[in-house]
């Protein structure tokens, strides 16, 4: 790994610099068109109270989704896993839809958060009934619960009347209402959970070869599994409550990180935090500046997918 480090450390430092530059640049770009230097009194207001919280929230949410995605893929030993795989997004969507339809849009974030956490708790209690459970059982239960919640959301959309538009926009995700408290909240989740997952990097490495293997290598596999799931759930539920269910970031950023840096999670986790944040900040800046604030989930896939395909083409099959 000595040769790997010579590659890894510059890349991580480069990503960190890119993240700072992205945050600063994007804070000064927007439909109101303020440049770096402005003396108008309203400029400081817009930058400080509207754009900065939104940029930071986007960064933290993107980071949360990417890091949770990386953790889920390692835990489920499946590169196709995404952070929503256990039903967090459909649970969040159900909570949000209920708030939109029955409470006229009040408490949407709270309901979304509760829905996301409830989905995971339901999955755990169903899959965990017989004591020892395999991650495969967990995965299948998550998919089943996801589909069930999605069906309920579809039903709500069908009967929602004039609220349909609001639900659909929520489902695609965005930062229209990002407030300073959102930025602070997401940071408060990301920092401890991200650090926890970073320091569990080697547990994730071992788990990605199988729970029995992890146990044979001296890892407390069961405790590691539940810790990873718990941290990921908090990250994803927080992200969902702030920005709805934004796709693509959590699935693809971990892949890109592994393609560039290899699959060692002690490197992938920090890389995902930085790259996930950068992708979402740029995507959000594009939509709010040029595309009249379309749902950001559309943009992440729109710019992320071609990049991903280019990377696959260039690197061949390496996960």
């Amino acid at each position, binding site marked *: *790994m*000595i040769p790997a480090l010579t590659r890894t450390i510059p890349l991580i430092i480069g990503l960190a610099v890119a993240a700072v530059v992205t945050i600063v640049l994007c804070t000064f770009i927007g439909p109101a068109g303020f440049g770096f230097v402005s003396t108008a009194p309203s400029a400081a207001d817009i930058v400080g109270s509207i754009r900065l919280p939104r940029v930071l929230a986007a960064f933290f949410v993107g980071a949360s989704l990417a890091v949770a995605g990386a953790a889920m893929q*390692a835990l489920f*030993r*499946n*590169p196709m896993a995404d952070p929503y795989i256990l039903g967090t997004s459909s649970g969040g969507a159900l909570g949000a839809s209920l708030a939109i339809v029955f409470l006229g849009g009040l408490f949407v974030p709270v309901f979304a958060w509760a829905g996301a956490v409830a989905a995971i708790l339901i999955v755990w209690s169903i899959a965990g009934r*017989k004591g*020892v459970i395999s991650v495969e059982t967990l995965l299948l239960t998550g998919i089943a619960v996801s589909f069930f919640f999605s069906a309920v959301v579809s039903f709500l959309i069908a009967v929602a009347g004039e609220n349909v538009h609001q639900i659909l926009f929520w489902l695609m995700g965005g930062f229209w209402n990002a407030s300073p408290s959102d930025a602070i909240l997401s940071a408060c989740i990301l920092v401890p959970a991200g650090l926890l997952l970073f*320091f*569990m990097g*080697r*547990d994730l*490495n*071992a788990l*990605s*070869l*199988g*729970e*029995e*293997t992890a*146990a*044979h*290598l*001296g*890892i*407390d*596999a069961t405790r590691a599994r539940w810790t990873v799931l718990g941290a990921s759930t908090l990250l994803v539920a927080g992200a969902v409550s702030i920005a709805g269910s934004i796709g693509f970031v959590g699935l693809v950023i971990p892949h890109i990180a*592994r393609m560039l840096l*290899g*699959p*060692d999670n002690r490197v992938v986790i920090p890389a995902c935090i930085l790259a996930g944040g950068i992708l979402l900040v740029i995507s959000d800046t594009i939509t709010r500046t040029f595309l009249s604030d379309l749902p950001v989930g559309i943009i992440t896939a729109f710019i992320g997918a071609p990049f991903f395909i280019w990377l696959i083409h260039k690197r061949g099959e*390496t*996960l």
Partner: protein
Amino acid sequence: MTGQYSINAEDLHAGYGTQDIVKSISCSFSPGTFTGIIGPNGSGKTTLLKAFSRVIPASGILELDGKAVSDFTPAELGMALGFVPQDEGRPFSYTVLQVVLMARYARTSRFAALMPADYARCRRALEDTGVAHLADRSIRTLSGGEWQRVLIARALAQDTNVLLLDEPTSHLDLSHQSDILTLMRDLAASGATIIGVFHDLNLAALYCDRLIMIKNGQMVADGTPDKVLTPEKIREVYSAEVVTSCHPATGRTFLMPVTAINGNVSPLKSLNVQVISGGGSGSGLLYFLTGRGLSVSAGILATTDTDYITAKALEIPCIPVLPFSQIPVHSLEKLKAMLAQADRVVLSVHPVGAGNLPVLLALRDMDPARIIIHLPEGREFASYDFAKGTAAAAYQDLCAAGARCTTSYVGILGLLLTASS
């Protein structure tokens, strides 16, 4: 036995869910031993191994180095016991070295980096299993055998006193099988406790000091390979017919399966075949005919003759005589009686001198139509004659009288079939 057991299990039960797969197994393993666990598919070998390593819940007493396994922390267990699985999924492209370095996790704080010594240890393990040249390769590009050797290297790099191997050679070619098992035997000789699950009983017998045979989750035999690998036990546990012997080159027990016979299908089942051979000419033939379900008997054989050893191993009746001596008259009379009873006689052409010429001459007295002569392709009777032409002449006479000749075992079978119908 003074000293401490590396692993001590008493009344161990283990399984998945509510069903016990391992039922009340008690056994202990001392440092410096290489034990093989054998048994048919689904008998609980792997479950037993995983019960030892605590990844499958087990009840009963289980001690590691004299201390209850439940008192070990996961990291302590990772330093005390290494495990080589049959196979392991490879969803991500770790390099070989990265995977082997995971062996050192248990010895390093999660907040610290691995030391150069850890790298050196892992590279040495890769060298020991012959995969050092693959260190920087992605594990997803390895063959099954290369991957298996990487998994073994990882367990070695854990530096544990106990090593559990689940079919460690299942994906390996012949030379790597012996390399890996020799390595394990050497490790045991230097004080490690090695326990392996084996399907290849001959490999197990060759390398292990001790074999434990299990069936339906219960121990049915425990001891040295020659005590455990008896035809009776194999029949009982595997429902297979084997012959066992002491291998002339290794001195270790080895066994060969005898082809299972479907008695209802074989049209030759009730045919009595008398084989006349000598000097090792009949070994393959006796095995071949027995495997086809025939009732085979052998002729007069010196006790040093390979044919005699084969006949003993296959439990084929024969008339033993002392080597390098005249055939006693009563033995010859006995042979004549057997010839009279046989449906067919297969004469495997063999070297004939003055000593065993009487056997050949005895054949002249019987109906030549009942005699089948097996002469290997490209050979002549003359090259088997050590009796100044009389032996070759005797062979020729049998042919002339109407005995049928063939050059192959299948040819013999064909002649037996036409004769029997």
